[in-house]
């Protein structure tokens, strides 16, 4: 059992809900081996496949502009059977239908592997950002949004969400060999349709941050100022903190000059 299992189920419920609401939905079953995934793609995939940059004038469509809506996250589980290996679910219009459009964009990548553990969390989440590895596709370099462009050249070659999904699956399988199954959900239907995903994303991010902190701790680094899990009774720095708290108490009692926030 893995920490994200419940969220894999919640994503399934979300997809069902979108279907029940009558959203246009396509499910594509792709090959499952990394080689076959790339076999018939119209674009190149791999390091240096793209310059990493698509100019505004060269863009066929934009995905996930924050104004239009953007949400993306990754999930993984050691229960391989819970992942529909090779499945791409698209809720909303596909890229070729939307020349010049700025589409809302949701992307959920779900990976399964019997040997997956918390240690692979970081490499899995970073595969969302393919950098220069997908021809004609750019994820803008920003720490906050999945904000992307598809080039006119790539669109003319037939770039669509199946292309993107297969490329992402292949990259994930290649970067994290313990991944045995990958499934991707794309949403382009409406900004409101991203709201339930954003709620999930907030929870996933909390878990993700904990895993990141734990992984750093395993390497000998603490991400947070307080390093002992807030168990003050065993902390060698407790006298220092106690002194600081005492000073804060004194300041609160005597009042501080100016209007700096006393709780700050």
């Amino acid at each position, binding site marked *: 059992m893995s920490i994200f299992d419940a969220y894999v189920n919640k994503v399934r419920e979300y997809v069902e809900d979108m279907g029940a609401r009558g959203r246009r939905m396509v499910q594509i079953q792709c090959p499952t081996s990394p080689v076959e995934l790339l076999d018939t793609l119209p674009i190149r995939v791999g390091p240096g496949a793209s310059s990493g940059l698509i*100019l505004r*004038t060269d863009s066929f469509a934009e995905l996930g502009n924050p104004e239009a809506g953007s949400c993306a996250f990754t999930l993984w589980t050691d229960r391989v059977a819970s992942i529909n290996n090779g499945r791409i679910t698209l809720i909303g219009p596909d890229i070729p239908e939307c020349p010049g459009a700025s589409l809302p964009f949701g992307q959920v990548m779900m990976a399964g592997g019997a040997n997956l553990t918390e240690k692979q969390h970081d490499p899995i989440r970073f595969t969302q950002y393919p950098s220069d590895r997908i021809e004609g596709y750019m994820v803008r*370099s920003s720490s906050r949004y999945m904000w992307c462009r598809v080039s006119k050249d790539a669109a003319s070659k037939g770039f669509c969400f199946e292309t993107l999904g297969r490329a992402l699956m292949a990259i994930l399988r290649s970067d994290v060999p313990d991944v045995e199954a990958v499934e991707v959900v794309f949403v382009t239907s409406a900004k409101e349709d991203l709201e339930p995903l954003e709620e999930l994303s907030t929870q996933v991010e909390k878990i993700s941050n904990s895993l990141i902190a734990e992984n750093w701790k395993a390497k000998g680094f603490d991400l947070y100022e307080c390093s002992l899990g807030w168990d003050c009774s065993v902390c060698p720095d407790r006298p220092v903190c106690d002194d600081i708290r005492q000073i804060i108490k004194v300041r609160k009692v005597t009042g501080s000059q100016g*209007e700096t926030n006393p709780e700050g």
Partner: protein
Amino acid sequence: MVRQYKYEPHLFRRYKEERDYFSFLSGILAQDPDPISQLSREITDITVERYDQIMQYAEEGKPFIAGYFCAAPEIYEAMDLPWYMIMATPFLAASAPYLLGDIDGAEAMGLGTDWCTACRLSLYYIEAELTPKPWALIGLIHPCDAGNLLHQSVARNQKWRDVPIFATDPPYFEDQRSIDYFAGELRRMVAFLEEHTGHKLDLDRLREVCIESNKQYELWAEYAQLRRAVPCPHGWGIGGPQCFAAVQVFQTGKPRGTQWLRNLLANTEQRVKEGVGTIPNEKIRYFWFDLLPFGWVFEFLPWLEEEWGAVMVMEMFGFTPYTPIDIRNEDTIFKGLAKRNLYDSPMVRQARGPADYFAADIVRVVKDYNIDCVIWPGHMGHKDGSASTGIMREICNELGVPYIHIGLDLFDKRYTTPDECKDKVSKFFSAMGLG
């Protein structure tokens, strides 16, 4: 209650010298027809105009304040309150000829030399009566202890005892609770400013400012992408710091700033299309993960380009995320401002919370910008970041990209001299096989 402001001309002596320094730079740049020089000139022009505006308001007895780029300058603009940073000299005028003398002055005053030079200088200017006294001061108690100490000192400083001060309290984590809390802090800041300046915040005006500001951030974000091009269209001379100056300091929510960004973008897109780099033979693409060494920038960064073909592709201020402010209503506007000012503002966003910001930024920049090496300058004042140097080195090791921690003072070239920096970086480039 709005206090009676007394104009004291002697407090503006250094301020006027700074203004004249920028005016001098503008004059030099005006003589160079190169489009990049003209873009730079526009920035020095708007800098001079802000200095003039502050001096004019002071003389006429109109309210102006001291504030910060990460404390919602959109609000100052909407309230029609000209503002300056008490840390402006180290940031903006650091190449001015009097800087080293002022650093000595701060030391002679007894301010600790292990304290960030930017903060030390700012307190020195107040104590030496070289900084305009504002109607009200927005202080900063994040992201570093040094900044916090500066503002605590100012709050208790005899010379500025009559200046009302308010500091927004920054939460540590990045979540909705923190955003809600910080939005409340910004509302308290508005109440404080209204009380002490008599200016009122008009929500419609704030909405207008945010709409324009959103355009500016989007253009800035677009510009940042263009620096991914190989060769990089611009080097250290223009980029993030100028965008920062326009968007977060001098032209926040103003159409002129938006136009400047459009001009910058047009120039950069043209260079990318033509494959023109900042130098003819780009050999090393480096990520300078801090402020530029403003105190001695001309002695170091041009040398890196000329000697090593090393181009600053990205730096800390250039990698600023774009969060549009949702202008639907007052609540969404304040929450948007909270998010932007806590989690987007350069340097503040990396140094305020968990250290993973440093690692995550390095991963994205190295991969997206085709970076050959990461330089953490290790400014003596950035102890918060230097505490994360192990994390940064570790992530660079994982990425297979060389990392160097120099250890210098961005403002005082005597701390680690430019020659020592050149020597360190040269050995690093050679040892890593980059040169």
